[in-house]
């Protein structure tokens, strides 16, 4: 009885969210996977269990390869770009420049904008018109004599251009993470290194960076999972065109245009799995670390 009194109130407090998450996250995930393993290729039919057939068949669809390639290119450019830029901004801030608070706010502001608003502005900035038809960035490049680009409409490198607005939006957030990380490095460690004859660069290379590894990992996970399920940015910039197709857009088309629920669910499952590949090792790692400490 006494023991119940210690755990019962806590359980009661969290149980609504446990039930809600159980139904709306895990229940729906399970329902999605079940649907992905049926042959319900229109809204009317019942759908028989077909195992992993849809998961295998999807690789015969040319568009799937296109959207996966795009997602990979977008992820690599976006994650690396945001990490490097965020790190660089934090590095500059950490030097204790004047008006640091203002700069920090300015760099963080894009986070407050939704991806849709970002996308609509960047659609104009990255307009592919050239010469006298140029607007946005191409106009600027024209004036200062830089080559004009096709941006996101480029068949080969379009997705790299698509990552630019995402980098613009998220690098301030990465900066905040790194800045907190930098500040968490005890000044004594740096001074010890300097006393030992380390250059300023060497201090960063051998003392600060290794201590930032957990922050870098967190940033990587957060950016990686945003990137793999990116949808709103792409739709706002380019709509549902093949030239910028990604799995999430393909899923939307499969469900609402092609009216093929099983195919949509299969694509959704692959998106969840690809994010899980990122997140689960991270969770395991952090749980282990907590136990150790």
């Amino acid at each position: 009885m006494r023991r119940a009194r210690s755990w019962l109130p806590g359980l009661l407090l969290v149980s609504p969210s446990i039930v809600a998450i159980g139904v709306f996250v895990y229940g729906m995930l399970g329902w999605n996977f079940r649907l992905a393993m049926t042959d319900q290729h229109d809204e009317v039919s019942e759908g028989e269990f077909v195992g992993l057939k849809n998961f295998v068949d999807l690789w015969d669809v040319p568009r799937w390869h296109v959207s996966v390639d795009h997602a990979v290119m977008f992820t690599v450019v976006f994650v690396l770009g945001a990490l490097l830029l965020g790190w660089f901004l934090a590095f500059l801030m950490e030097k204790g420049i004047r008006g640091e608070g203002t700069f920090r706010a300015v760099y963080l502001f894009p986070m407050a904008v939704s991806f849709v608003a970002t996308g609509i502005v960047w659609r104009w900035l990255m307009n592919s018109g050239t010469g006298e038809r140029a607007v946005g960035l191409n106009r600027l490049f024209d004036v200062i004599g830089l080559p004009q680009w096709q941006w996101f409409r480029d068949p080969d490198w379009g997705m790299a251009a698509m990552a630019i607005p995402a980098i613009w939006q998220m690098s301030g957030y990465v900066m905040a993470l790194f800045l907190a990380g930098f500040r968490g490095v005890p000044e004594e460690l740096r001074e010890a290194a300097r006393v030992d004859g380390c250059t300023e660069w060497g201090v960063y290379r051998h003392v600060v960076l290794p201590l930032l590894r957990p922050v870098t990992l967190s940033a990587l996970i957060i950016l990686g999972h945003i990137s793999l399920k990116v949808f709103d940015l792409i739709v706002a910039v380019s709509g549902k065109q093949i030239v910028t197709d990604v799995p999430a857009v393909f899923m939307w088309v499969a469900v609402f245009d092609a009216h093929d629920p099983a195919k949509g669910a299969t694509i959704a499952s692959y998106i969840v799995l690809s994010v899980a590949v990122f997140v689960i090792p991270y969770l395991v790692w952090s749980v282990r670390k907590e136990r150790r400490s």
Partner: protein
Amino acid sequence: MAGVLGLAACGGSGGGGGQAAQSSAATGGGKQQVEVFSWWTGPGEADGLQAMKKIFEERNPNYTFFDAAVAGGSGDKAKALLQSKLQADTPPDTFQGHAGAELQGYIKAGDLEDLTFLYDELKLKDVFPAQLVDQISVQGKIYSVPVNIHRSNVLWFNPKVLKEAGVAAAPTTIEEFVADLEKVKAKGKIPLSVGSEWTVTHLLENVLLGTLGTDAYNALFKPGADWNSPQVAKALENFKTILSYAGDPQDDWQPAAKQVADGQAAFTIMGDWAYGYFHNPPEGGLGKKSKEDFDWAPAPGTGGTYLWLSDSFTLPKGAKNRDGAIAWLKVAASKEGQDAFNPKKGSIPARKDADQSLYTDYLADALKDWSSDKLAGSIQHGVSVSQPWLAAINEAVGLFIAGKDVAALQKALAVAAQANAQ
């Protein structure tokens, strides 16, 4: 009270009409609401809808019109919302859909009532062209009432650019068209402007019709049709040739049309909704002079054929206010309703007995052709192919734009036809 509700609902219909519709079940003061679901929120089309609403409320003092319009061109967002409403068995009283095969999914799912009784009661088979009735019938049944007719196969051009390039008249065959494109290219202008990927599918349906001819084109959508034939291969080669003269793709059809209006490009192939954009005064349009700043002709090789599409209204099963919906359909089908709606929307009535004096300039041409031309159904705009089939075609065209592989395109189109023709 109901009047206030209705007014508030209309005011908010631009953005969040969908949510507002959820709370529309209220009936008050003896008046019943009729929830009409459409994607007509833009300039012109929203005015046309208001004009029909006025007639509806005059004729039916017991009903109030509830505008559940969802913004977004060609109804992408509206259709997604509609899908969830239908699956939850809470349909609007009547909803807009492109007449023809686009409705097949709803019919198969048992969402729509057969409207043959209404056609018989109003003798609609006598006032709509026989070919139209034939092309929207599904196994002898008709599920929607067409309000307007748009034309897909229109070649828009800039007469000044053509003159400069030494092109005397609009091309009438594909071969002439390619020769003219070449002449424009030599002058350094964009020969053909295109928009986002769907406008390229729109171009494809025009090249298919222009190459194959009306009968062979219409036969493509019958079960067992042969998309692997050498004729289709020829059409796709033409498509590739024509596409090689296209300028950089624009955001949508409007910027592509604007290139023609501004004299940067010579031609664009787009439906006749482009007329309003060219002609209407600024804000809604470009304020250009017809025949002088822009001109039109049937798309090359399609003279004498009306590649049509139509917005229509349906009667969903389980509509809360079935009688009200039928009253709305009667207005939508009437001469009075169609003549109120169409001049504002920039389209022509589906009825043959329209008041010709209301339709001027381009619309007068269109009305004349509608009564005499052969009919063929649009692909991109839902007449000839169902939604899954169209999604497969758009996918094939999108991949073609990147790869320019005619054989792969033909194979993908053939597979799509085999999987979806019925």
